Every structure is written in C-alpha cells, then in structure tokens.
C-alpha cells in the first residue's frame, strides 16, 4: 500500500483532471452544440448564434488542452495507452476542431459568397468533433475492448454526447438569444433534452450490466443506496427543464437561464456517476492512477503552480463572462 504523497498526489491529480474534462464538456459542449445546431435557412440567425460564442470558444477549448495535458503530465503511461487505442477517432476529432476553429474566423473575413461554405464547415467540424468525442468516451468506458458490442456501445455513446452537446448548446441560446431565434432554440432544446435523457438511461443500464466492477460499485452494498441521489436529482432536473420548455416563452423572459443551469446539473451528475464507476482506474480495468502516475517531484512542481494559477484562471474567466453578460447582439467585431 502506498503512503504519503505517493498515495494522495495521484488522487489530487485525477480530481484536477476530472475537473478539467468536466469544465471542457460543459463549456466547449455548449459552443460545439451551437455549431451543430446552425440552421441552413437563416444567415442572420447563424450570425447571432456564432456571435454568442465568439468571445468564449477559444478559452473553452483550452480546457481540453489542460485535461489532456494533465493526463500527459500526471499519468504519462495512461496517456500513451489511451491514445494508442483512440488514434483514429482522435485524428478525426482534431480535424473537426481545426475546421470549426478556423471557420469561425474565415466566415467573417472571406468574400460574402464564400461565407455559407465556411458556415457549413463550422457545422460539419462541430459535428465531427462531437461524434468523435462521444465515440472515444464509449470506447474508454468499455476498456477499449475490440468486440462488436463495444463498437455498438461506442456508437450509442457518440449519439448521446451529440444529443447532450446540442441540448446544452440550445439551452445556451435560450439564455443568450431573444425573439425568433430564442423560440427556435427552445424547440431544439426540448427535443435534444429527450434524446439526452434517453442516452443517459441507456448508458446507465448497459454499463453495470456489462461490467461486474461497475455493478458492484452501484449495487454491491447498502451504503450505495445513498448514491440514488444522483439519478433522482438528474430526473428532477430533466423534468423541470422539460416543463419549462413546454410552456416557453414566459413574460419578461422569466427563467431563461433555467435550461442552461439544468443542463449543467445534468452534465455534472452524469460526470460524477461515470467518475465514481471507474475510480481509481485511469484506464478502466487495466491501469489504476498509482500505476500510471509520474514522479512525485514532478507532480509537486506542477501542483504548486496549479494551485496558484487555477483560481486566477477561474476569476478572469468569470470576469470575461460578466463583460459579455446578457443577450447577444449583432457581433460587433471591435
């Protein structure tokens, strides 16, 4: 049994890494979702949708770099193993992220007749990156097994994540947009919410049934009953958001933030449930966090920096969201 910092440094780092990936899923989730939802039939709406994520997408994507970076820094052996198995989907995800990232700038700068082309690239890139992420999550959950069932599960997961990102993207638009676009976003949000809920149920059923470990963790003891709080809260979040969206719109834009907050709650709970299912494995069933961890001296060095810098990052991220608070107007580039 490991003791001292050799024991708890990897625990701290899996927590930090989890936080980075959770923030990534929420933050880049909504802007990828907005990208996926871009409608073909209205250029003004596309402009507004992209304007709503304009100041944020870049920083949002940085959480992915931090998450992968922490995997690389803290668990180098796992980084190599995971990326070995995910080589092709990683390539496709990166291609998608590259395309949408540059489309964002090109669409505003190219001659007008090329703008629609870049909008399509934006939408396609967002969708490709999202599908690839969901597919990778699915493969990760089944421990990179190479069976038909695993690939089927990964495809299911790709669809769920796409629904989830579209949902949080639509919820973001309900909060940030007004008028016709807001009404449209509310309709999108409700459809995507149901797809997301369906996906969560499917994964929650399949996962314990296929993995004895996961089953034992959730149903193995009486204390695990306390975990019921996760599905129960999740159920009520879905219910509240659904009722709100069903009766949308309200006077004075009452509660336009409810779907987004609901989405965040659902994301956090799903993430906690997944994390709980696999802890302390960093590669499910193959490698735990202590086997994968780097030298304590390296972890200390980066931890000190992270503890100083992360609060600053969070503070100035909040500052940036406050600067662009409220309904998005036409993108005033400068």
């Amino acid at each position, binding site marked *: 049994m490991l003791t001292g910092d050799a024991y708890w440094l990897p625990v701290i780092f899996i927590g930090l890494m989890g936080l980075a990936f959770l923030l990534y899923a929420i933050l880049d989730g909504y802007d990828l979702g907005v990208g996926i939802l871009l409608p073909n039939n209205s250029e003004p709406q596309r402009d507004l949708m992209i304007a709503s994520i304009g100041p944020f997408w870049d920083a949002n994507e940085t959480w992915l770099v931090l998450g*992968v*970076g922490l995997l690389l820094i803290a668990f180098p052996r796992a*980084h190599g193993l995971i990326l*070995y198995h995910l080589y092709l989907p990683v390539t496709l995800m990166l291609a998608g992220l590259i395309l949408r990232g540059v489309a964002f700038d090109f669409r505003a700068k190219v001659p007008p007749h090329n703008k629609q082309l870049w909008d399509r690239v934006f939408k396609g890139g967002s969708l490709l990156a999202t599908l690839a992420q969901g597919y990778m999550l699915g493969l990760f959950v089944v421990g990179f097994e190479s069976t038909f069932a695993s690939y089927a599960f990964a495809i299911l997961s790709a669809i769920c994540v796409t629904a989830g990102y579209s949902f949080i993207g639509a919820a973001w638009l309900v909060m940030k947009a007004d008028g016709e676009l807001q009404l449209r976003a509310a309709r999108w949000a409700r459809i995507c919410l149901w797809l997301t809920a369906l996906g969560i149920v499917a994964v929650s059923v399949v996962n314990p049934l296929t993995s004895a470990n996961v089953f034992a963790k959730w149903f193995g003891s009486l204390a695990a009953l306390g975990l019921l709080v996760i599905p129960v809260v999740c159920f009520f979040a879905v219910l509240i958001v659904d009722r709100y969206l069903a009766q949308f719109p309200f006077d004075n834009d009452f509660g336009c933030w409810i779907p987004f907050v609901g989405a965040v709650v659902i994301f956090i709970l799903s993430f906690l449930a997944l994390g709980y299912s696999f802890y302390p494995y960093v590669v499910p069933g193959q490698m735990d966090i202590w086997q994968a961890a780097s030298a304590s001296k390296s972890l200390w060095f980066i931890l000190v920096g992270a503890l100083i810098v992360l609060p600053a990052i969070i503070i100035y991220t909040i500052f940036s969201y406050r600067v662009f608070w409220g309904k998005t107007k036409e993108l005033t580039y400068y």
Partner: protein
Amino acid sequence: MVDTFLLSRIQFAANISFHILFPTITIALCWFLLFFRIKYNRTGDEVWMRCYRFWVKIFALSFALGVVSGITMSFQFGTNWPGYMETVGNIAGPLLGYEVLTAFFLEATFLGIMLFGINRVSPRVHTIATVLVAIGTSLSAFWILALNSWMQTPTGYEMRDGVAYPLSWWAVIFNPSMPYRVAHMLLASGITAAFLIAGISAYRLLRGDHKPAPQLALKVGLLAAAVLLPMQVLVGDLHGLNTLKHQPAKIAAMEAVWETTAGAPFTVFALPNEIDRINRYALEIPGAASFILTHDWRGEVKGLNEFAGEHPPVAPVFFSFRLMLGMGMLMWLVAWTFGWMMWKKKSLPVWALRVLVLMTFSGWIATLSGWYVTEIGRQPYLVYGVLKTSEAVTSLARENVGFSLAVYLTLYVALLTAYISTLFVMARKSVLVDRPEDLPSLQERHNPLTQNTQE
C-alpha cells in the same frame, strides 16, 4: 518501405511546421498591437486605432490557426511518440503544464475581450487585455522553448532505470541553450511580423489605398525590421557558439565539415555526399567557418567523422542553414535600403513596394529553415544524448499513421491557401472602407502631440 517511424516523423514535422507559422506571427504581432493601442491612447490620433483594428483582425485569424494546430500537438506526443513521455515525462510534463496554465488560458480569455469587448470595457481595461494577451503569447513561447532547449541541452536531471527524474527545476528550465533560443525565436517572430506588416501595407498602397494608416504601418514595420535584424545576427552568432560548445555534431553538419580542421573554410555552396563523406562542387571561403565559430581564423572545428553514427543527416541541415542565412541577409538588406529610402523620400517607389509584397512571408521561410537546422541537427536523438528518436516511436500500424498524415496534409494545404488568400482579401477590403473623408480633420492630425509620429 515507408514505415510507422518515418510516417510519424513526417507527420510530426508537418504538424509542427504548420503550427509554428502562426505563433511566429502572433507572438510579436500582439506587441505591435499594443504599440498601436498605446500610441492611440497617448495621441488620440485615429490613424493608430485604424492600424489596431486592421491588424487585430489578422491577429485573430492567425491566433485561431495557432490554437487549433496547437491542440494537435498536445495529442501528438501520446499518439505517435509514447516513448518520449515515458522516458522524460517527468521533465516535459510540468513544462507543458505551466505553458497551459500560465499562458494558454490568459491569452485565450483576454483575446475575447480584446476582439469583441472594445465597446463593453473602458479603454484602460481594453489596453490591459492587450497587454495580457501579449504577455500570454510570449510566456507560452518561453515555456515551450525552455522544453525544446532542454531536449537539445539537457541539464538538472538524473536517469534512474531508464527514466529521467528532475533534480533542479532551475537547471532544467534555465538550461545552457535556453536563453539563446528564446532570444533567437522572439526576434525571429518580431522580424516575421514586421515583414508581414510591411508586405500587406505595401500591397494596400499598391492597390491605391491613400489613407494614412497603411503608410504608417509600413513605416513601423520597416523600422522594426531594420532594428531587429542586426540584433538577430548578433544573437544568432551567440547561439551558434553555444551550439558548438554543447552540440558540436550539429555545427559540423551545418558547415558540412567532415574532418576535424584548424582553419575550417566556410562552404558557400556544395553538395555534401554522406556515402563518400566529402563535399562535391564546393565553393569555399578559407578559414571563415573557424572565424565565425571560434572568432579565430585558425580555430579548430570538429568534423563529422568524429561522430560517426551519432551525427544528423548532413544535407538537410547544411541547406536549411544556408537558406536561413541567405533569407536573413536579404531581409537585412531590404530593411536597411528601403528604410533609408523611406527616411529620405518619405515614400517608396512602386518597385520597392512590389519587393515588399513578395517578401510578405519571408520571415516564415527563415524561421522554418532555422527550426529545421536545430531539429534535424539534433538527430538521431529526440533528447540529446538521452533518448533516440527511433526508441520513442509508437507501435501503431503504419496504415493508421498514413491515414492521419493524409488527413492533416490535406487540411494544412487547404488552410494555408485559405489563410494567405484571406489576408490579401482583407487588405483589398480595407482599401474600399474607411475612406479619408471619415478621418478626423487635418488640424486634428497635425496637432503637436502627433507631429513626431506622423513624420
């Protein structure tokens, strides 16, 4: 047979070459933007704000390309070079981590405010946002160059069971080649941005843009290039001396010196032949290599034959070095001649503007060839003296790497074409907008505060 190793190397070279183009622009361009912004704050002269607004758009586009191509890099280590992190992850990991934590978030977050927040925050906060983005881009260069330098001249670590462990972070970060490499790269970025600014501004003038902004930006670009180029030559020389001390095999390949010689000649041109280990068709300046490297005409330069099997491929290093050197000299000549003409006659003739347009991306060529010298020059090592490149490669099937390489290359060709053509589209668009009649009155432009800057 093309194997996983070769494909992975080509892919890494393609990814890093494409990526470095954009930071090379943005690292320095942001300081130029800060200069424009501060000038505007001090003088209130609208022309500085016009410079800012035009160049911040180009900055945003270049930055976006840098960000997305950089994400690829963070996956690349794990996907294709798992042996790298397994061997030196304890050193490389924290340096990369500090880059993300101290630089990436800073620049990405405040870029949003810099680009879209000008009407939402006070001028002071907007200026501070510009400062923070500039600091962020330079910090990010600092960390990644510290790591690259450590891979060239590793210090402050010990090997235990084939894995590197840090002994002193100070020695790791401030390793022997770091100060030179950081200075060399920051100056390269300054020169690249200066020629980009001069080239695009010259293009606007050629397209009949009579507003003061492109004229002013052209001046700023030329002046910066004229100041930075001699500094770069000096720093480059010091960097060379440092390399001679720590990586003599690289220097021997740069100069294609086969036998250890006192009074080694500088080979202006040759075809180095690695099989017979001689130079064919050599055109040499006697003693000059020794003079450049040891500052003594009779100084000794170690030859490649002392490092048999341990030295880099000679021809690519030799030619890349000459390309960098030639490009640097040409840029120096252009910056000083045109700078002098500008100073004397207040404007440049059409042919000179055309030359500047042709040289818009000359900084890219010099920077890339410089990186090829230092990176190919480190071979066959990935971490000099510690880890060979061939020991770090993945065991993936070559079909997979071939597929990803094809995806990346297609993307890069398309994006580079789109990027370059978009810069010129933006320049043409700017000729048509912001006509002189929207500018502040003549009197305002000739107020005493702005006199110096207008000249």
